[in-house]
């Protein structure tokens, strides 16, 4: 294991990997600063570009985009009161009022420092926790893997925005789509409608480009702009004095820990973590009334938390093959186009790539801080790019990105079909992330179910007699019960009585 850690460290400092990380972080910063473009979408669009790169370089670049976009989102949040990414939503509450007071540089400086601390804490957790969990996960057989996949799906669906039924429905539709193509066990084509393009299954990357990017492009043109008042200049210093950093350090650290643990739970990303951390900072503050009026703690907490989510979300992704957030689901797509199947084998068979990715998260945090100091002021111009201009460019990139994967125009049509499906799902608040995760986990669930039933000679009791699987299924059941309206109502009544 130690040899792999050193191998990853050596890899990450090779010139091409370092350049990919620096470029990815910068790209993330710029994309994050553009209101309307999310980190997930940027990663989805860039996945085909990494196809020409070695796996460790490509995946390091994608992870760096994720890290850079988490800070980049705060630039638009502070300057134009519009979060550049959903994870920066809580930053608008105090960031914008501080900028209105003429302290935009201070607000962005606090945000940058918080993002740096959050990134470092989460990288350290990732470096220590992932190998331990990965070591446990390699001992898992098909029965345990089935339990893990079921637990991952149920947690993701039950924690998704909206009702639990909608989350589960999206997840199961994703699982259903994953069955299209050649069956891995029997080798017969399933649900291909005789179309040779579907024999290899629905290309996961094509689906996610459509699901994450086309709805965004449609959202950007469907409304007229809201005409938010913009802060045009940053006059004060972005690099914060040590006295201020020292004052905010407990908030940075506490929020980072909140972010890491929120990230580890599948289905919860930076958008959830930022509000958790913000509320916790307000609850612990001596001056809760200052929140919403430009409090530095109100900027420090969400920004540390959303960057800490990056490392946290990568823990279940790397060790178990269950994405911790929609962005890591897309990162998994990046691994899959390089022929690397997510799951416990990531820590053994593909240890070189995995440990490079882990170190890349830490390095991108440092690069983000340096680039943030130099380029934040320059990023003001990207916040001014019009929604409609962006939308058309996004569509053009989606088309070329979907085509680039297999040089196949059928897949471009498939991408658009998934995009329209994603748009309608978004309209009625059905989360898209469970569908994507269903598409990823479908094959693993299918194969592990087949293998488990072969071991047990067709008996379904194997899932209950295996203690690890039984516990995982029990946890899945509990997570489902906890999200039902009956349970919520019962808890509310109990609290009222107490």
């Amino acid at each position: 294991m130690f040899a792999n850690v050193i191998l990853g460290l050596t890899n990450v400092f090779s010139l091409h990997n370092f350049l990919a990380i620096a470029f990815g972080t910068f790209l993330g910063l710029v994309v994050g600063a553009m209101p309307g473009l999310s980190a997930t979408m940027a990663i989805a669009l860039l996945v085909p570009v990494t196809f020409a790169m070695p796996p460790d370089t490509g995946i390091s670049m994608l992870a760096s985009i994720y890290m850079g976009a988490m800070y980049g989102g705060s630039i638009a949040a502070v300057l134009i009161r519009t979060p550049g990414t959903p994870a920066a939503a809580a930053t608008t509450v105090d960031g914008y009022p501080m900028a209105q007071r003429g302290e935009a540089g201070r607000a962005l400086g606090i945000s940058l420092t918080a993002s740096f601390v959050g990134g470092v804490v989460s990288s350290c957790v990732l470096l220590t926790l992932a190998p331990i969990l990965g070591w446990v996960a390699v001992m898992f057989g098909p029965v345990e893997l089935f339990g893990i996949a079921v637990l991952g799906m149920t947690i993701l669906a039950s924690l998704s925005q909206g009702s639990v039924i909608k989350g589960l429905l999206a997840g199961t539709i994703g699982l259903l789509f994953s069955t299209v193509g050649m069956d891995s066990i029997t080798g017969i084509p399933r649900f291909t409608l005789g179309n040779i393009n579907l024999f290899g299954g629905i290309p996961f990357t094509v689906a996610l480009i459509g699901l994450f990017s086309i709805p965004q492009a449609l959202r950007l043109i469907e409304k007229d702009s809201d005409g938010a008042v913009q802060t045009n200049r940053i006059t004060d210093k972005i690099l914060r004095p040590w006295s201020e950093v020292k004052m905010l350090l407990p908030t940075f650290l506490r929020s980072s820990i909140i972010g890491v643990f929120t990230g580890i739970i599948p289905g919860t990303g930076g958008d959830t973590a930022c509000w958790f951390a913000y509320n916790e900072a307000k609850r612990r503050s001596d001056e809760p009334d200052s929140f919403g009026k430009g409090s530095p703690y109100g900027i420090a907490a969400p920004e540390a938390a959303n960057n800490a989510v990056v490392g946290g979300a990568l823990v279940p992704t790397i060790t178990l093959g269950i994405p911790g957030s929609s962005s890591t689901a897309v990162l998994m797509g990046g691994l899959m186009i390089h022929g690397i199947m997510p799951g416990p084998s990531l820590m053994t068979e593909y240890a070189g790539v995995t440990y490079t990715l882990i170190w890349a998260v830490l390095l991108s945090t440092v690069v983000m801080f340096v680039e943030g100091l130099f380029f934040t002021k320059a990023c003001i111009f990207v916040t001014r790019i019009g929604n409609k201009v962006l939308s058309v460019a996004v569509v053009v990139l989606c088309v070329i990105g979907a085509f680039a994967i297999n040089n196949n125009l059928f897949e471009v049509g498939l991408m658009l079909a998934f995009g329209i499906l994603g748009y309608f799902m978004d309209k009625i608040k059905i989360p898209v992330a469970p569908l994507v995760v269903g598409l990823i986990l479908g094959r693993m669930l299918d194969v592990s179910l087949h293998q488990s039933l072969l071991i047990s000679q067709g008996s379904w009791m194997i899932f209950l007699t295996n203690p690890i699987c039984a516990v995982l299924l029990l946890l899945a059941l509990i997570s489902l019960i906890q999200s039902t309206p009956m349970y919520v109502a019962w808890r509310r009544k109990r609290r009222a009585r107490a």
Partner: protein
Amino acid sequence: MKSTTQHYLFSAFSMALSLFFLQKSLSMSRTAARFPQLIAGLVLILALAMAFQTWKRAPGFGGEEKEPSAPIHHVRVAVYVAAMVLYIFLIPRLGYFIATPLFMLVSYGYFRATGPVRTVLICLGFPVFIYLLFVLFLKLPIPLGLME
């Protein structure tokens, strides 16, 4: 379209999808059909549950119909989607580097996204960027259509 109707439509779509998968799986071997049948059954149950939930929350049942706060330009969205379909259809016929500026020009013109000079600059500059990245750097064989 009201939110309730949209929910019913999505439930119907999910039910149709699950029934299609169930029907197709009947002609497969038991091993190959097991997982899709299990999942299709779950989709059917969840789609029915969603329809029931929508009916329970419908305005006539005591629920509240929430309309979006900002008006959405449905026609604009429909025209844009049609333009995308036409764009994808034209790529193999006209070629990527003719269809793309054309799509951008028409879309920017329809949305009045930016001034004419900037529109022309973006419509010409963006395909050049795509050419540099995907053709020169990634060596991707892009459909050239009429340019072939």
